[in-house]
Each structure stands twice: as structure tokens, then as C-alpha cells.
């Protein structure tokens, strides 16, 4: 379970007049569930790539439980990300030619984090997301099933935080609901922080907190009352 402290973030891209992201400060308590909303182009994906260390922020500090990932080297950030962040993306990014199980295990294998426990956990997670046939080839699966494999992959190494970028956007509403359910349930079960960028009101309403971005700035940040009621 990881908490986040953001300070003085400023991300600019060459050719853009205004910064794509400008956040003075933001903190997310460990174990909370946060929705990132905002119009297209408002900077949600940019924020996620900064939070996960996929992109370097031009300025500012990003502290995950006191670790400033901006100060880490490229290799160290890869290692840190592998160990601490579970990522779920809109386009799944599963690898054709591999089975569901092999896809879940691939990042762990590539980073040398493979143990027998990890293997057993992968099987267990696939069961948990409702996929009985772990040896099914990924290209033969439906989109909803693929996203569930991606969720199992994100949770494999018991990350402190699960971050999802539009996890339901390329799914129909039923499959989307199932994915939303799984993200919420599993992050609660494994006790990790959850950050989800989404357009879907239904999903964002089920989170503890909603942060709305516009033109790279936080324009709304609030606890969602409906849920509390």
C-alpha cells in the first residue's frame, strides 16, 4: 500500500504553449481509491505516465511513500515500477502467441522475479478474475477476458498501487462493469492504492475520491458523497 505526495509538477511538451500538466501539490493516502477524470486531452495519461515514472517530469517531486522516483535512474525506475506498480491500460498490451498465464507471468519473468509462489499466484489470480483456462492463447480471447488477464498481470507482484488508464473504454458496458468490479474488489482484497483514469461516470462514482483535470490543472478534487451515503 503506497501513498503519494506530488509537489511542483510541471510537464511541457515542445510546441505546446501551455504546460500539459501543472500541479502544485497533490497527495493521495495509501489505500484510497481515486478517479481521474477530465475531458480528452486534459492530461490524465500524462499524469499517469509521470506517476509511474514512464516519463520524467520536467520539474517537481513525486514521492511514493517517501521514494522520489524522479531521482531514480532509468534502470532503478524500471525496477521500482516492476515491484510497486500494477498497470492496466486501455489497449491491454497483451502479447499474442502467448497463453493467458504466460502473459500474466511475462513481466515477472523478464525482470527475474519469477518464483514458484509467483507462478501459483498467477494461476490463482486468473481463477479469481474468472478465467478457468489459463493456457488459452491470448489472441483467441474476447476483449473483456483480455482486460481481465491484464488485471491479473497488474496484481501479480502484489504492487502497492494499481494504476489504470481508461481500463473500460474499449469494452462494452457489461464487460466494462465486470472490469470495474474486479479492479475495486481486488485492490481492496490486496490492500493497494487504486488510481483509475476514466470517462465513465459509473466507475468514477464508485471510487472514494474524484480528481478532475482540465488543461493540465486540477479543477475539482472531492470525496464522493453518494458513496459515503
Amino acid at each position, binding site marked *: 500500500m503506497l501513498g503519494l505526495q506530488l509537489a511542483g509538477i510541471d510537464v511541457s511538451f515542445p510546441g505546446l504553449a501551455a504546460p500539459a500538466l501543472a500541479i502544485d501539490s497533490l497527495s493521495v493516502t495509501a489505500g484510497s481509491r481515486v478517479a481521474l477524470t477530465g475531458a480528452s486531452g486534459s492530461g490524465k495519461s500524462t499524469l499517469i505516465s509521470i506517476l509511474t515514472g514512464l516519463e520524467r517530469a520536467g520539474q517537481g517531486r513525486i514521492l511514493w511513500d517517501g521514494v522520489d522516483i524522479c531521482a531514480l535512474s532509468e534502470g532503478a525506475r*524500471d525496477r521500482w515500477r*516492476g515491484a510497486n506498480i500494477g498497470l492496466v*491500460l*486501455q489497449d491491454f*498490451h497483451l502479447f499474442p502467441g*502467448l497463453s493467458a498465464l504466460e502473459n500474466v507471468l*511475462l513481466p515477472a519473468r523478464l*525482470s527475474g522475479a519469477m518464483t514458484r509462489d509467483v507462478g501459483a499466484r498467477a494461476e490463482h489470480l486468473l481463477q479469481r478474475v474468472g478465467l478457468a483456462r489459463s493456457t488459452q492463447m491470448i489472441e483467441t480471447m474476447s476483449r473483456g477476458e483480455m482486460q481481465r488477464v491484464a488485471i491479473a498481470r497488474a496484481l501479480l507482484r502484489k504492487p502497492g498501487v494499481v494504476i489504470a*488508464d481508461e481500463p473500460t473504454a474499449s469494452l462494452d458496458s457489461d464487460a466494462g462493469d465486470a472490469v470495474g468490479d474486479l479492479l475495486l474488489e481486488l485492490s481492496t482484497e490486496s490492500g493497494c492504492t487504486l488510481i483509475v483514469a476514466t470517462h465513465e461516470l459509473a466507475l468514477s462514482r464508485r471510487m472514494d475520491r474524484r480528481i478532475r483535470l482540465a488543461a493540465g490543472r486540477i479543477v475539482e478534487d472531492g470525496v464522493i458523497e453518494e458513496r459515503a451515503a
Partner: protein
Amino acid sequence: MIGFILADLRRLWAGSLVFVLLVALATALGVAVTLQERALRLGSARAADKFDLVIGAPGSETQLVLSSIFLQPSPLPLMEGTVLARLLADPRVASAAPVGFGDSFGGYAVVGTSTGLVGELEQLAEGRVFATLGEAVAGAAVDLALGYAVKPTHGLAELGGHAHTELAYRIVGRLKPTGTAWDRAILVPMQAVWALHGMAAAEHDDADGHDDHPHDETASGAGGDHPHIDADAALDEDWSKATPGLPAILVKPKSIADAYKLRQDYRSNTTLAVFPGEVLTNLYATLGDAKRVLVGVTTGAQVLVAAAILLVTILHVGQRRRQIGALRAFGAPRTAVFVIVWSELFALIAAGVLSGFALGFGAAKFIAGYLSGESGVAMPVMFAAGDGFLVFAILAFAGCLAMLPAVLAYRQSPAAALRA
């Protein structure tokens, strides 16, 4: 990681196959050229090895060697027959044998020589050495049975040579393979060649009446103006009598020192003496430029292939930016990305190079087999010790080549995974 690489290659199998094929063909081209050139050089050197010193009339050294060692059909100037007698009397000479060319039969050279040379060439696989004017010994690659009657043609039949009708040789023996052009020769008594060409010493009278070769009868009938040659006349190998002109004499000196002295002594106005190996070496030196051109063309083709490969790979890595980014986004270290791209590429190139070596070897074997069949000269297609180094060098080069796309992938930002 290996599972991932294999899955990736399996998915892109068609492209990978073309890729491997391209590398294999480029490699095979170079390998075949190198091996074939080596086989030609080694094969002809070995074929020449059996013959220490060749003496002929003054003229072209190369032509003398090509005609006497490789039995290439072309007229040689004649030297005086007394040279042979002089050589045989020379204490530095272990043996000397006359050779006479010019006739052929069905693509095989009919070569006149002495019984001594037949014995020196190789053991007989079957039969015996010729003992009369009308007998012949076939080389190992001559596809004619013992007892077959050979009616020689003057020159090559396909070049419009006329048939000698006055004599037919009967094959009475066959040599074991020598790996030289002589495997495709029909060896006959030198005296018979002289007789056929109207150069015989007068002692062979038309004495013997009975003739048990019916084909000879018809032959004599057809070629009415030629003197009849008695096929059953016993051979007289006393070369000291006045002998007609000779195109070449094959000499075996007693020692290396003798060989050099003999060569010096017989390089004069009336004779020419050469070491076949030396003549070949000079010939190869002359042909060296041709080889360099060939190697240059091959290298050019290989460079083109290497460039094409590099281009395709870099484009491919570019196309898969998102996938490569995703690997890292999900926690794979960038070194893993580097290793994956590098080993995938290297595996393909290595597969291509190794199968290219096999392919080139096969091609060289095929060509050498064809050429051997034509010339009789055995061409040993084989890898030399240096080729192992060559494989290593090519693979090392391939390893460096594969670094470039791998470095591109390594340096690529993983954020690409998030962008559509």
C-alpha cells in the same frame, strides 16, 4: 524470455523465414565462390602433383601443362623423338614416358603412352596393361567395358574430326581412380598413335595375315588409302631407336635436385621443361584479378543484404514502439528489452548464416561434381581451418549489426505504451 522470443518469431514466421533466406542466400553466395575457387585450385594442384616434370617442344608453358596434365585437346608442337632416348639414358631420370594426344573417342581423350607410365599412374582395377598395338587401358571414369572396341577420332568428334578407320583399340584393362584428368582418358600404346598418324618407324610391316577383329576388316576396307595397322603386333618399347616426333614427355626425376637440374638442362632452343605445379601457380596469379572481381561482387551483394536487413529491422522496431514500451511499463527492465531485440535478430541472422554455409557447401559440391564429371579432375570441396574463424567473424559482425536496433529499443521511452 526465450518463450517470448520464440512466440514472437512464430508469430512473424513468414517475415522471419524471408529474412533467414535472404541472409542464407547472401552467405551461400560467398561460401560457394570461396569453396569452389579453393576446390578448383586444390583439385588441379593435386592433379598436377602426380606429374613432376613435363618436357615438350618450345612454346607456351601453360599450353604444355593444360594439354599433358589436363588433356585439354589442342595441338602441341612436336619435339624430336631422340629427346626421349636421351632422357632415358640420363642417370638423374627415374622414369620418362612419351605422351601423344590428338585423338578422342566419345568425349574421352585417347592418349598414347608407354606401359611404364600406366604402371606409374595407378594400379589396375581390372584387366591388364596393353601388350599389343591394338590394346588399350581405360581410365577409371571411362564408361566402357573391357573388350570394347574403340575407334579413335582425330581431334574431337564434335569439332568435325575424321574417324581413324584403320585401327580399333580393344580395352583390356582399367585403372583405379587417380583424381586427375587421366581418369577420363583411354591409354593406348604410343607406337599405335604414331602409326595412325603416319609417323610410324618403318619396322612395323604389314606382315601378319590373320585378323580376328571383324570391325578391323571393315575399317581397313573403308580407309583404303591408309596403310593397314596390325593390331596384334607386340609392343617394342625400346625408345632408343629413332623415334618420330613427340608432343610431350612426362619425367620422374630421381631427386628434387635432379628435377631442378633437368629443368634447367632441357630449357633450350629445342625443348621446354616445366614443373606443372609452378605453371599452375603462375596461372592462378594471373587469374587472381578475376577472383578478386568475383569476391568484390559477392561482397557487394552481402553488404546490400546487410543494409536491407538493418533497414527492415529498424523499421520493425519503430513499428513496435508501443509494444516495446509496454514491456517496460509492466516492469521489464530495459536490459531485458535490449536482450530480446538483440537475440531475436541475432538468432535470425545466425540461422541464416549457418544455413547459408550449408547451402553454399552443397552448391559448391554440386558444381564441383559437375566439373569433375566433365574434366575428370577431382575437386575437393572442403572447409579449411580458417573458415571456422570466418564463421566466427561473420557472427561477430552480425552481433554488432543487431546491436543497433537493440540500442534503439533500449533507449526508447516506455511512455509510448500509453499513447495510441
